[in-house]
């Protein structure tokens, strides 16, 4: 899977979780950029991303991920 493909899939996940078809994410996107992205939705996002890519994040990763780019790094390292 290429980095672009991961982003395409991630956009779908974000659109579902935040129920907004307009959302597109990039390397620098953080919780500050998406209005409903609070700590409770973060859980849903993590679970949905895990489901989509068939991976599991570990605790350290969930705690230290700074932006979507770092999330993509982790996903690619598992694939």
């Amino acid at each position, binding site marked *: 899977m290429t980095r672009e493909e991961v982003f395409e899939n991630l956009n779908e996940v974000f659109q579902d979780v*935040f*129920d907004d078809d307009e959302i597109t994410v990039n390397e620098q996107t953080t919780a500050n950029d998406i209005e409903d992205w609070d700590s409770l939705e973060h*859980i*849903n996002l993590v679970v949905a991303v895990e*489901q989509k890519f068939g991976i599991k994040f570990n*605790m350290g990763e969930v705690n230290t991920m700074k932006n979507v780019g770092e999330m993509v790094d982790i996903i690619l390292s598992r694939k």
Partner: protein
Amino acid sequence: MKELEYPFDASYILSKKKKIKKVLLEEKNNFIEKKIAILGGSTTSNIKLILELFLLNYGIKPCFYESEYNQYYEDAVFPNKELEEFVPDIIYVYTTNRNITNYPVMSDDEDSIDKLLKQEIEKFTNIWTILTEKYACPIIQNNFEMPFYRIMGNKDASDIHGKVNFVSRLNMEFYKYAQTHKDFYICDINWISADYGLKEWSDPFYYHMYKYALNVNAIPYLSFNVANIIKSIFGKNKKGFVLDLDNTLWGGVIGDDGVDNIILGPEESEGQVYSEFQRYIKEHKQIGVILNVNSKNDYENAISGLKHPDSELFVDDFISIKANWDPKDKNFSDIANELNLLPESLVFIDDNPAERHIVTEQLKDVSAPEIGEVQNYIQNIDRNGYFEVTTLSKDDMKRNEMYKENAKRAQLQASFSNYGEYLKSLEMKGIIKSFESIYIARIAQLTNKSNQFNLTTKRYTPSAIEASMNDDNYITLYGKLIDKFGDNGVVSVVIGHVIDDICHIDLWIMSCRVLKRDMEFAMMDTLVHRCQNYGIKQIKGYYYPTAKNNMVRQFYALQGFNKIFEDEKGNTEWIYNIPEEYKNKNKFIIVEE
């Protein structure tokens, strides 16, 4: 909505929950609104959001109170203005083994472990007692799931120091409370977590990351169970099965293969599975679920299958058997009509997806689960919680007999040309009295189940029934009807409250299975007698239309009331002036008051 029936895709529900909610709100109408307080011992946010979806799917629109993180105890026990103003209809105490304060240690002796157990139980009984006193509404309480590790291994189960042993004893104490208190229901997360897989369910990742005491992916299974308890409390259970025969109750096609060649019975494995499924279906009769057949077959062939020597189900186990070549949706609605039930209260079991499709397309809100392969039938039906039991009255257990008796009455009726003669021949006796404790459960259940013969569609919990029973300002009546074929049990309920010499009828309901038997007139007679004893001069009736109660739109006119009010929605109000010389309206039932 198919996506919210078992077997469902939990990750789909989790990720699309916002979209699902929108669709449900658009597609459905006639919601009943309920206020639900969730008192949590860990994070409950998603539990609430997913519970909302399942409830909307059941026609219940919830509004939530959610306690702050792990404030279940404080919210319940200490003064709580917000919750008091919320006035919950249901309280769900979501606690798990993460909320157990102290476990035994190996050096504890038996007495101190007993004491520990007692302390833990007292914490919870204190919560339940205060909630009941303050809010007088049903409480749903989780039991405890098993611990996710066992330091003694298998001995953890039997040794009093073991966590497994301690949790099991706590659960037993919870059940004792449930057995002796009404309006108190256990949400069995011990079973649900075992069914899901305890290892996955209690993955500590979710607790330490997000303070969820269960795997987030398991939440739809939990919320579904809670929704099932709630819809059962509010009378939205299903009432019966409509079953296909070929490849559903036995293997093979009886018309082609002949009765000797259908697959059923102990001789080989596939036959055993069908036998087990038949036993599963038959067990439902004990909780009042009624069984019917809807099969594309010649009638004689269908009956011969039920007379197969290895059949667990007999012709007599069914109320209505439709075996013909009509479309299945037609048979299905005919069965519902015969039973005086709405189609949506029956579950359609058929191995053929095309038949399931035509029935669910033609008849709104009928459930027809995807039952899969024969060895999965039980699992796929059972986990849907169609018949979730919250109260089980004596009448429930006898329901099949009652429908059988009704069939006999129908036969008798056909032999009379004059309906009055028929009613006389039934030799009916009525018992119409003020509420009594032994009938509280049945009365509450009737108020929640009756949709058609129901003037105001007001729902009552057992506690509310008890309160009206004990209040002098209320006139309460229950009516039982007995005839030569059997006892119909409590079939009608009237609740009125008295203000200034006027009796306002809050509720008037009757079970449709005693329609056209003069019971509604017998109830009116006793109501009038009761009012006369109180010195009441007027009775005021109210009718609020719903999608289902059109049959009683003119009920008060029939009873001699005058309409005094009608609004644009069709809500009406009626007055009856009690005459000096009241003449009884019922002519066929001998009533004991």
